């Protein structure tokens, strides 16, 4: 039942991890270059468009409102009929069905709200994605050799949580990239993966080893993998919510006639588009987190004889769950959509990070398996 340990595999794994971190670093530079370059290019396009716009007809101008607050949707559509309006204070959500807005070029333009790939080619971004794919492939080899070396799933201590977690975050990012152009998140996601890999190798390095008996359960595979995947999704939405805050500030500034100081944010879609997509991802991640919580409880029942005991790790998993439940509620509460919801999503993610770092290391509990 116990596979034997293969130290050579473990060493290969560490080499792969380092190579992956190196490749990611180059990808990171390419993503940053893309941001810088595109923002310059967009500015040039803007200037040209502004010239054209000066000659454009007034009808054209009227038809293409710019930026936020250009108008509200449908007047007599009965959006608040009793049977679905729910409890008092419930908001009509910023549903994506009314997310349309002008496509005009001009001050404050941002990327397409659909987050689909546009026509123009962005060479640095393509290089960055290619490098990320390469890095992820090497990283995958690192994770697999680690698993072979230890003869089990590679998530049994902090080192393995970090290396595997970073891989899942990058993989989820790449998967989303297939359908959506989220390349503007590249610097963030890849930067985070690099930090995780470096932290794993320096602060949490652990040689390949067996699992303590308490972790020898198929629930480890189920519970932890879902937790890691949900966390990867939360990572994406955290980045999007942070950008949403910046973007909404920028949109407001521009709408009020201020100068556009954050040129690189042109690459980033409108705040509302960010909010809508991050809501959808958060909803998936929340279901995942619900499963994490439930499977954790089932496992706790098997291992310790009680399904819930307010162990520190359980407390924080619960707190995260409640914060994101709050986020979902906020999106349906009048006055709480938009910026406030984004803050909740950010707070939720900070709790995830806290749960993973501080709680694993400094809090004693039944979950103290960090391998330190």
């Amino acid at each position, binding site marked *: 039942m116990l596979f034997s340990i293969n130290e050579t595999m473990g060493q290969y794994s560490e080499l792969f991890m380092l190579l992956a971190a190196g490749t990611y670093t180059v990808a990171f530079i390419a993503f940053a270059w893309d941001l810088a370059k595109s923002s310059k290019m967009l500015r040039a396009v803007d200037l040209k468009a502004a010239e054209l716009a000066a000659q454009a007809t007034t009808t054209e101008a009227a038809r293409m409102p710019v930026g936020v607050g250009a108008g509200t*949707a449908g007047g007599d559509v009965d959006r608040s009929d009793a049977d679905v309006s729910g409890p008092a204070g419930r908001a009509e959500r910023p549903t994506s069905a009314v997310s349309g807005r002008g496509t005009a070029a001009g001050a404050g333009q941002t990327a397409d709200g659909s987050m689909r790939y546009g026509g123009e080619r962005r060479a640095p971004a393509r290089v960055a994605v290619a490098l990320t794919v390469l890095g992820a492939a090497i990283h995958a080899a690192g994770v697999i050799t680690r698993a072979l070396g230890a003869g089990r799933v590679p998530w049994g201590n902090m080192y393995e949580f970090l290396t595997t977690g970073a891989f899942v975050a990058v993989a989820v990012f790449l998967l989303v990239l297939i359908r959506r152009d989220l390349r503007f998140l590249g610097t963030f996601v890849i930067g985070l993966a690099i930090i995780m890999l470096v932290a794993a190798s320096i602060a949490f390095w652990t040689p390949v080893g067996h699992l303590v008996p308490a972790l020898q359960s198929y629930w480890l595979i189920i519970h932890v993998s879902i937790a890691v995947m949900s966390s990867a999704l939360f990572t994406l939405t955290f980045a999007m919510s942070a950008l949403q805050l910046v973007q909404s500030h920028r949109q407001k500034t521009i709408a009020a006639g201020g100068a556009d100081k954050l040129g690189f944010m042109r690459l980033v879609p409108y705040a509302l588009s960010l909010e809508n997509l991050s809501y959808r991802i958060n909803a998936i991640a929340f279901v995942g987190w619900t499963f994490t919580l439930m499977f954790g409880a089932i496992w706790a029942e098997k291992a310790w004889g009680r*399904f819930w005991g307010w162990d520190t790790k359980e407390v924080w998993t619960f707190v995260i769950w409640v914060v994101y439940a709050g986020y979902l509620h906020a999106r349906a509460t009048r006055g709480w959509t938009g910026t406030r919801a984004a803050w909740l999503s950010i707070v939720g993610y900070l709790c995830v990070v806290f749960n993973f770092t501080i709680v694993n290391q400094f809090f004693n509990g039944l979950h103290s398996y960090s391998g330190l």
Partner: protein
Amino acid sequence: MSERVNEKKKKSSKPEAVLPSLGALGMLRWAWTQLTSMRTALFLLLLLAVAAVPGSLFPQRPANPAIVTQYIKDHPDYGAILDSLQLYDVYSSAWFSAIYILLFVSLIGCVIPRAIAHYKAMRSQPPRTPARLSRLPEYGTLVIPADAGIPASAAISDAGELLKKRGYRVDVRDRDGARPSLGAERGFLKEVGNLVFHTSLIGVLVSVAAGGLFGYSGQRILVEGDTFVNTLVGYDQFTPGTNFQSSQLQPYSVQLDKFDITFDRESQGKFGQPIDFTAAVTTKENPDAPAKQEVLKVNDPLSLGGTSVYLTGNGYAPVVTIRDGAGNIAMQGPVVAKLQGENYYSSVVIKVPDAKPEQLAFAGFFLPTAFVTDQGVSFSGDPELINPQLTLNSYFGDLGLDAGSPQNVFELDVKKLTPLNARNLDTKGIVLAPGSSYTLPNGKGSISFDGVKRYIGVDIHHNPGQLYALIFALLAVAGLVTSLYVNRRRVWVRTGTHEDGRTVVEYGLLARGEDHRLAGEAAAIRKLLSDEWLLGEDATTGSQPAPSTTADNDRADSAANGAGSTHATEEQPAEDFIQSTAGSSESKKDQ
């Protein structure tokens, strides 16, 4: 329930926020409205998250009362204050309970009216056709040529059929009039899912509470060869639930035959760490039942008589024989050694109340692999029995056991005892290897170390609420997924006959709540209709295009292109058919 709903019902134009002149009943109603509002629910949820945090910062009594006592001692300045704030019992504290009880009251106040409203909505017809379909987020028109021979009434029937097949509930209005229309709706499961989710949360809470009332738990240490019988006296420690009755205990038995541990001998970093615990046991469902061989492991509890038996601890139990001053065997058998440090470095306490003329006691350490440093500090070098050693001090006198007050078997109070052997006495301490024995000074007796057995600690739990909690949790997840991924949509279609004989069809879609695939649905319905009427590509280009053509609604450009000049707009005189240019620009929100 909702302010809006109440307003509609009462047909009053007076906003409820006006506080004075409400009276006592009005105040109550106002408070209830506040409590069950979405804002309060959100606030309580966030408060619950914050309130749960201190439980991870301070030691908690239910988890470990001893640590709490120590913590209060160590922090004389604020330790007691924290206690008065119930910060060591966060999850049963008044304030934590208040928050979640309020939350659940709010939840109930929220779910019941919504369930009633939804039940009514499910039985009523889809809402009236709006005057201007073009104002809906998704809108489009189709034109059926005059020679197709499909009049407005037939077109509306066709549309109704198609929508019914697509799962919509359809209501056709004014079929034979000049402007027949239909309203259709689907996705009632969304709201059902939401209600199931929230109701199940109540179910989970109730199940957990019931488990606390009717459950029980206990611990027992079993040395190899020992048998546990599930009766009150069988437990070393027992924690009954509030409503526990001893008749609940089913007298099954568990005998520990053998306990094996595998230690890690491969990896450098964790050399000597246990990697497998296996207990071979013989169980009987009741005293008359046939014996059964079973294996008990960590993560793999036994199920017996409605309880679960968990392997939670283990250690060594040195077997000793102690003779008293009179030469009789005063005690013989294994002594459970309590883990103290690395590599099963364990403490041993032996009390011999039966020794005569004087009672005897021993206290010291057991080391499976004894090493002694140059400084004379002994430690255990390995968890396995490579060089087992028992080092003891001995005492005689009155153990105080006869008074009947309970004592901790793992602790020895030496205040009233006279030391016989100790490191600082001339007699020195007793050091024993298996098979050796030692004669106590002054003819007080002797002790021999006969061998070593292993013991396990088992936790026994009975929680009748557990299964229900699981069922409700699963229901909650099912409800959650349904509510998040079923889309509630409404479709309206209106048809009319143009002067030149063509039949013009317009349709509009509206989503309830979040729905990013509404445009996709609009496109799908459009395709169904054009296929039905064989309109083909030609008709699609020849008529009003749908506002957005992709499968996704997050498009930034969906508003603008509806305004272009098209067949329908140009040729339809009826005002309902005039394309709105209001578009659907980003709705203003409180950002």
